[in-house]
């Protein structure tokens, strides 16, 4: 991933601001609880949910095991169907390829389907530097783009905004980029949607280049699949003359049959719909139907490194449904921006440090941005054991030592020694107990203050359990 997010403060510091922002907390609480409850109902309708989840997990694992084979098969089929395949090792290379392709068309603007991969590589910024304006056409992405904001949720990037804020952004910004918001626009959802529709229609009709990602790529036929709710994707995928799709290499599935599983689990997990309103599929190019030129940019950007990690690779099963965000108590209170990446919430906490490494301050703090409550694992439609990956990444961060961890390691070692010597443990407990209250109300020093700033300590017992036992059950 590229630079905008690096230099972010660590998660706890970024989260502190968010926790104190009452309006943000309200917006997030309302939105996540609404989607969470709906998802639970949509999933409960299927009596074979557990089997679907297991099937999705296995399909992804098998594909990842033979990723090279399926990617080559995909390339062959896409090429045979009239498309061109490009391989990009990192964000910079992908951006160079896409910018070059757009330049070659002579166009100065493109329309975009909502895509995490292009967010990840910060394609819009790269295009802007090349003098090309990218228009986001997904409603929430439009809100984020017009507000010069950053996305804070995978599926609902503007989840941190309420409708009054959205109305204000539309009123102030739409006119700068095209058709202004209608006079007297209110914050009624239907009016806001209509304003976006009118504003975007101009873009769809004028655009000659479309840029997308993909939810799936089917190797056996070289077909790409985009699932969406608003129909903007369908417009971008069919109207322009040139279509460029940037897709992470882990999005390939072997066959159409495999899609059967994900087209059931994805909509129910993400929008709580039984079926998403628009499912677009395309295979290369077709005469007189849709774009004349199709380019597929296959993106690595850290994925093969993640694949090499036996525990961590399960994060590549992710289908970006965002169910884990919607149930996460930490995400709900810290908000998406605190995660310092386009992938927030539980999946971001395990994916970002694998894609970017754990050397920057924010990336090293992400594996700790969880109480390991396991709510994410419970809802994940491809059964990613996020707590397990978090602990594995903590081992990586802690093992390296570094800021704060040297002291912690010493403390862990000391505690380990005491706990490995019951005599010493008992002596320590007795001294603490004799002091009555081991500690003053507010403790000095690192770690301790973080506890006592928010919570009282209990009175310590007069004797530890092991002494009671010795006296009462001799």
């Amino acid at each position: 991933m590229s630079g905008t997010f690096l230099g972010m403060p660590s998660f706890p510091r970024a989260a502190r601001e968010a926790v104190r922002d009452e309006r943000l907390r309200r917006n997030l609480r309302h939105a996540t609880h609404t989607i969470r409850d709906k998802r639970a109902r949509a999933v409960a309708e299927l009596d074979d949910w557990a089997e679907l989840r297991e099937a999705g997990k296995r399909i992804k694992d098998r594909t990842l095991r033979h990723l090279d084979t399926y990617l080559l098969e995909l390339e062959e089929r896409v090429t045979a169907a009239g498309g061109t395949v490009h391989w990009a090792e990192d964000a910079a290379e992908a951006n160079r390829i896409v910018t070059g392709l757009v330049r070659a068309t002579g166009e100065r603007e493109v329309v975009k389907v909502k895509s995490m991969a292009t967010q990840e590589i910060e394609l819009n910024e790269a295009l802007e530097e090349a003098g090309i304006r990218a228009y986001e056409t997904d409603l929430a992405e439009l809100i984020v783009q017009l507000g010069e904001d950053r996305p804070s949720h995978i599926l609902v990037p503007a989840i941190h905004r309420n409708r009054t804020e959205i109305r204000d952004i539309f009123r102030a910004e739409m006119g700068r980029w095209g058709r202004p918001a209608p006079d007297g626009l209110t914050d009624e959802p239907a009016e806001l949607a209509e304003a976006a529709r009118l504003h975007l229609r101009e873009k769809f009709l004028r655009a000659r280049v479309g840029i997308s990602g993909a939810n799936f790529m089917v190797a056996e036929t070289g077909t790409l699949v985009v699932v969406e709710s608003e129909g903007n994707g369908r417009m971008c995928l069919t109207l322009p003359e040139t279509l460029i799709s940037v897709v992470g290499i882990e999005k390939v599935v072997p066959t159409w049959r495999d899609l059967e599983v994900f087209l059931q689990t994805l909509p129910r997990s993400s929008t709580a719909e039984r079926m998403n309103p628009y499912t677009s599929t395309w295979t290369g190019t077709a005469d007189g139907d849709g774009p004349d030129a199709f380019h597929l940019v296959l993106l690595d950007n850290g994925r093969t490194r993640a694949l090499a990690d036996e525990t961590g690779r399960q994060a590549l099963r992710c289908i970006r449904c965002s169910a884990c965000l919607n149930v996460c108590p930490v995400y709900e209170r810290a908000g998406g921006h605190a995660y310092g990446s386009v992938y927030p919430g539980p999946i971001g906490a395990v994916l970002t440090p694998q894609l970017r490494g754990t050397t920057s301050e924010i990336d090293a703090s992400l594996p700790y941005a969880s109480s390991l409550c396991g709510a994410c694992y419970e809802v994940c439609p491809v059964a990613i054991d996020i707590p397990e990956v978090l602990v594995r990444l903590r081992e990586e961060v802690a093992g390296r030592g570094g800021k704060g961890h040297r002291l912690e390691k010493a403390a862990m070692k000391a505690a380990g020694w005491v706990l490995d010597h019951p005599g010493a443990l008992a002596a320590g407990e007795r001294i603490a107990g004799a002091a009555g209250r081991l500690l003053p109300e507010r403790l000095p020093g690192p770690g301790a203050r973080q506890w006592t700033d928010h919570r009282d300590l209990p009175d310590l017992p007069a004797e530890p359990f092991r002494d009671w036992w010795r006296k009462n059950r001799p």
Partner: protein
Amino acid sequence: MRVALFVTCVNDAVFPSTGVATVRLLERLGVEVDFPSAQTCCGQPQFNTGYRRETAPLVRRTVRAFEGYEHVVVPSGSCAAMVRHHYPSFGPRAAALGPRVRELTEFLVDVLGVTDVGAYFPHAVTYHPSCHGLRLLGLGDRPRRLLEAVRGLELRELPGAEECCGFGGTFAVKNPDVSAAMGADKVAHAVETGAGVLCGADNSCLLHVGGTASRLKAPLRTVHLAEVLASTEEEPWR
């Protein structure tokens, strides 16, 4: 029947009353209790914080302390989950301990086959199912069935019960603001029920929630499930 009590380090040092209650309860039900004194800590704090190497000696110690016991009873969901779910990654000897370790409510309901333990606790109580008991062990309705059979006890539904309280071991000090916000919400939900007692099966969570309630001056006290179940008309707990 003879069982080993794995009291856990937190209970040993900070909540011995929970250990005493567990002993009293089990003995009342005719179980003979042993306390292998070589036991200390299961290693969960080290393990979950990323110190696998520092965890290994504690795993070895725990395994040795409880070898030879068919039933090991733990009044803590998260320590039981540590042994059952994470010990297998420390080798076959450690893995063998997993199936023999039972969280208190599992032991009562599954092994002894009782839900009415003859307890008396005349208070309104709400129950917080801690995450590891809920999701890793799948304790399900065992705690509820036990509480419903307690005479005098009025069980109140806790809103958002399945949401984490925000303790999470070192999470509480590494992410203090988010942890405190979660704790405050848990306290607010418990207070909302009108029950003066928040009951749970994990004292580390109760340490955090109780400490938060005390700081917020909320009318709430926290009591471990073992202490509720140990309480009788003749010998009321507190």
